[in-house]
């Protein structure tokens, strides 16, 4: 039986891969959708309001001086601002008046290598967009075309790993054959996982996000049981509340900024299968699964990148 399950899984993964090669990023786009873009001369704090008001965590930037797109605004930019402010508490005035086109200077000031976003044409195979995202270790990729008259760039949309996996979960019936336990697939990130305690100062957790190049840090109790998770997007709420100047806050206190419609942290165990993982992605806005054992002890994490990498390159 397990032999059959392994063969079915292998064939299903290959079939899903062919699906990704046969579709384009354009196919993932809804028939009608919204794209919010910000002029780089906006104040950073204004851009934060716009993201929160529109319930988004990232947006393409447009430089009206050069009439070109200037990359994506993401939670990493806000993390950089917090770190800059933490090392330069006297620069409150500068941070308050910082414009989006000043974010590059902040990156240089704190010595952070800018995230290479990459980009891809909307009509390239979806498989290629996925590979580019895995390569650039970013969780989103702008779809760029050219204005046929002026040859200027057009950002058609920004594709995320979540949207692609949801597209697969909605359109590939083969996901129902992915029945091998994820513990056998060697796709869980485990062992010396970055983590913190509820009383850890939030600034230390933010440092972990940057140093670890991760988008979330699990919070464990004295027994190693998973209690909560601090995510990169939580930084937006921290800045919104203006409490970033009180960075002595513990991460537990900072998490109280979370809005009440936060869906909660998803957990699974090594016995879970990708068939139910993909079904959960189809139904809910989930960005990672923390793997725990029967006692709730933290074992590892399964990110959307891990799942995408498995579908793209394994079997």
């Amino acid at each position, binding site marked *: 039986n397990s032999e059959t399950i392994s063969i079915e899984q292998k064939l299903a993964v290959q079939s899903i891969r062919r699906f990704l090669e046969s579709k384009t990023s354009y196919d993932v786009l809804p028939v009608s959708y919204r794209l919010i873009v910000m002029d780089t001369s906006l104040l950073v704090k204004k851009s934060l309001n716009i993201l929160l008001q529109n*319930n988004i965590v990232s947006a393409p930037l447009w430089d009206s001086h050069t009439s070109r797109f200037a990359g994506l605004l993401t939670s990493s930019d806000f993390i950089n601002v917090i770190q800059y402010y933490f090392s330069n508490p006297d620069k409150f005035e500068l941070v308050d008046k910082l414009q989006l086109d000043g974010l590059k200077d902040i990156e240089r000031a704190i010595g952070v290598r800018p995230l290479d976003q990459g980009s891809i044409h909307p009509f390239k195979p979806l498989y290629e967009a996925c590979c580019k995202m895995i390569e650039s270790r970013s969780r989103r990729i702008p779809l760029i075309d050219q204005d046929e008259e002026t040859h200027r760039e057009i950002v058609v949309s920004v594709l995320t790993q979540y949207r692609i996996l949801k597209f697969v979960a909605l359109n590939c019936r083969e996901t129902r054959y992915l029945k091998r336990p994820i513990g056998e697939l060697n796709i869980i990130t485990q062992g010396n996982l970055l983590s913190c305690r509820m009383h850890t100062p939030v600034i230390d957790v933010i440092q972990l996000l940057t140093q670890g190049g991760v988008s979330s840090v699990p919070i464990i109790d004295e027994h190693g049981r998973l209690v909560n998770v601090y995510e990169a997007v939580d930084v937006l709420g921290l800045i919104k*509340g203006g409490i970033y100047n009180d960075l002595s806050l513990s991460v537990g206190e900072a998490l109280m900024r979370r809005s009440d419609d936060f869906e909660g942290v*998803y957990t699974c165990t090594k016995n879970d299968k990708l068939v139910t993982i993909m079904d959960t992605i189809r139904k809910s806005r989930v960005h990672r699964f923390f793997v725990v054992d029967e006692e709730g002890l933290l074992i590892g994490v399964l990110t959307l990148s891990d799942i995408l990498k498995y579908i793209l390159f394994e079997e």
Partner: protein
Amino acid sequence: QKDEDSTIAILPSSLPQIHRANMLAAGSAAATKISPLSIKKSKTKWHFGIRSRSYPLDVMGEIYIALKNLGAEWAKPSEEDLWTIKVRWKYDMGQPTNEKIPDLMKMVIQLFQIEANNYLVDFKFDGWESSYGDASPSSNEDEMSTFSAYPFLHLTTKLIMELAVNS
């Protein structure tokens, strides 16, 4: 096919209400002061163009002044249609590009009356021209399928700001 033995779950202690209760129970001092982010996802209220209750000719005057201040040019309006302005706007990018790309953006600005003393100024993108004369390939409507709206949107923001500041 439901997979009965799925152990996927949502961590109860991560739900905001439960987390808050746990923090307060732990006696955290700051916890009482920190409230959850309640960004009212205020539905942006959209308008077509911009509204005005001023006298129609005053509105047109304001628009011409704003266009002039912004360095745009316009075709002389015909007697029978005083309420439409055909605008051309040099859109120089500052960086010299050897390739000849159209640099004159065309826009049509039109005043509509909605009801008694309630007017609407509508802005429409009207393609590109080249300031060095050669007629740009005026691909017709349904071929024109990849054009960037951002230069048009940018110029309308400048015009709206000019009108807002002047008024």
